[in-house]
């Protein structure tokens, strides 16, 4: 067997193995979703916010936000980029570090947005976002980022 054919055979076997491993991992390992965190924590608020967005329950998602006082119609402004559901790419959010100081908190998240492009283009766009929260009574409200358009474009 020629060396180049031998390499071809090795690559073919590796590719077959990759396909099988990917299917198994996604169908078994990828099925795991995060447990629901307590609602009165900054991480729990951010988690519920994204879960509501994923379920397209925009009223609930909006209830976790504190809109800026300058907006005249804050809900309509916030909701407007979410109008075209057929164009929405799939996305996932990984919760990272959080820090609490008195009535303020930050939660780091990694957002991966899946939008296939050309063959040589990375189909996953990754954004590192820090959420800022403020304590209101016993619950936490997100103050920034207030808008959500970046999740869909």
């Amino acid at each position: 067997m020629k060396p180049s054919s031998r390499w071809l055979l090795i690559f073919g076997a590796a590719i077959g193995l990759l396909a099988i491993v990917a299917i198994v991992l996604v169908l078994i390992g990828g099925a795991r979703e995060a447990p629901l965190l307590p609602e009165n924590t900054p991480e729990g608020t951010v988690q519920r916010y994204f879960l509501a967005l994923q379920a397209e329950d925009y009223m609930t998602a909006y209830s976790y936000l504190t809109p800026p006082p300058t907006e005249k119609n804050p809900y309509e402004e916030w909701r407007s980029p979410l109008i075209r559901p057929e164009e929405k790419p799939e996305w996932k959010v990984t919760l990272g570090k959080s820090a609490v100081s008195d009535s303020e908190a930050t939660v780091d998240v990694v957002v991966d947005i899946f939008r296939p492009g050309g063959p040589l283009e990375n189909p996953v766009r990754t954004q590192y976002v820090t959420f800022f929260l403020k304590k209101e009574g016993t619950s936490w409200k997100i103050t920034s980022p207030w808008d959500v358009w970046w999740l869909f474009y």
Partner: protein
Amino acid sequence: MSTAKRVYFYLVYFVALGMFAAGASILLGVCFDVITKYPALQIGAQAFSRQALSLGLAMLVIGGALWFLFWRAIQRNVSGNLAEIGSAIRKLFMNLILAVSALVGLYAAAGFLKWLVAGALLNQFPSGELARLIVTGVIWYYHWRVTEEEGQPSPDAKTLRRWYVYLLSGWGLVALSVNLVGLVNTAVLHLPVWGEAIVSGSFWSSSVQSNLSWILLGGAVWGFHWFRMARRDFDSTLRQVYLYLLAISGGAIAGLVALTTSLFKVFRFALGTLSTPTNTYFQFLGWTVPTMLVAAAVWVYHQHVTQEEAAHVQQQLSARRVHSYLMSFIGLGTLIAGLIILLGILLDVPLHAGSMVVTPGWWYNQLSVCLALVVVATPIWLYYWNRTLQMAAKGVAERRASSRRIFLYIVVGAAILTLAADLINIVYQLLNGLLQGTPGTEVLRHSKWSLQTLVVAIPALMYHWRILRQDQRLGAEVAAARKTVTVLVSDRAAELASQIEEKLGYKVHTLRYLGRKPKGFPALSDKEISRLAADIRAAPGTKVMLIATGGRILVLPYQEK
């Protein structure tokens, strides 16, 4: 295979390989994602992974099947067929695949390395980057192995391989140099010598991590392609282009820009008109000094290489010549700019005399720029122009060179147009001043720019016009009576064509002899090559075939029926 069939096969193969690679990258990325992010708290991971899996599998299976079918068909046609292996279309696509996979893989490697040096946080694991690095690495290695095994059996194959090698060498050298300067600049800005004026974050920032990654990758790419793949490739024109036009000229220009900026800032400081706080003023040294050092290292190393290789190279004049005229042009242009600014200051002295609205020391900045330009440009112009004069002294063939003709005509043309524009403005201002009854300072003020450029353009025009006329008298403009010359040679006598080209002053066609290699083809002396060129000129008709056989060269004039 016909050319159309080759294009069809390789084009479909290229696209199918892209689909296959994208599918494999997506699947591998999903695997890394599921494994590394498993302990992390995720929202929407299930739907995300399933969508990626679906697309990855579809692209992998369909793209993979198409790729395999076309690759087998191509390899069946190629097997043992030297003409097919050496075909320009095959080599174009093979080298294109090598270049694209190398560049995509390098950007992925940079992302992965940056994540490593940034502390390797698991929730930020770059699954996509690592997947693309592995897939492009495999594609590159496989095609590299194939091309290494089959070799480069035709001139087209050699040329296309060289395009790949020198493109990647140049890319690696630029990435290495730029990021070295960037890293040192950031380090200098973080030195505790700038007082409290600098407001900055931690040194270990994203840009430093990126610089480090690219230094490693740029160095590795340059090292591999330059020291391994381009080793002993002495008879390559592209090598000369890389050496003279990218490395030597590029290094010189980068270093000169940094030197000019440094001198300007130092003169400005010495003359004493600064609005910036002094403790941060010299921060520019953070990028100018490393730029000069890196540029000098690049320049010295590649200059040294050209000197070492001079003994092996028959035909390196073209790129070297372009480099000399390019640097002469840059030196002359910079020198002229400096002199124009200097004359502007001298003319401004009587114009500003007695004026109440002029700031004291108005000329400091202009003088700093002018001194910086003149100090840098004068030695550059003198060095390179002297070199071109020495080259021109060797004979009329050098004076006929396109780069010399272009240089002289650009300089003379630009000087004539500048003079014409200056004279029109000066005469217009003078006449207008006389007719309006306002001669004096106003006329001088409105003619100032024209006077500055006129005074510099006149000697520049006179000097280069004299050289142009001298070239013309020596026959530089006489078009050489060209014949279609075809040389049939084996690899062993390949340099013969370039020697003849040099004597004739125009390109000759080369045919490669594939039969039994002739024994002991003698190296021809300069005198024998001149005699051969004279025989070609004296041969009847417009077409001549040269055949090297039996230790001598037959000059055969012919005509197509």
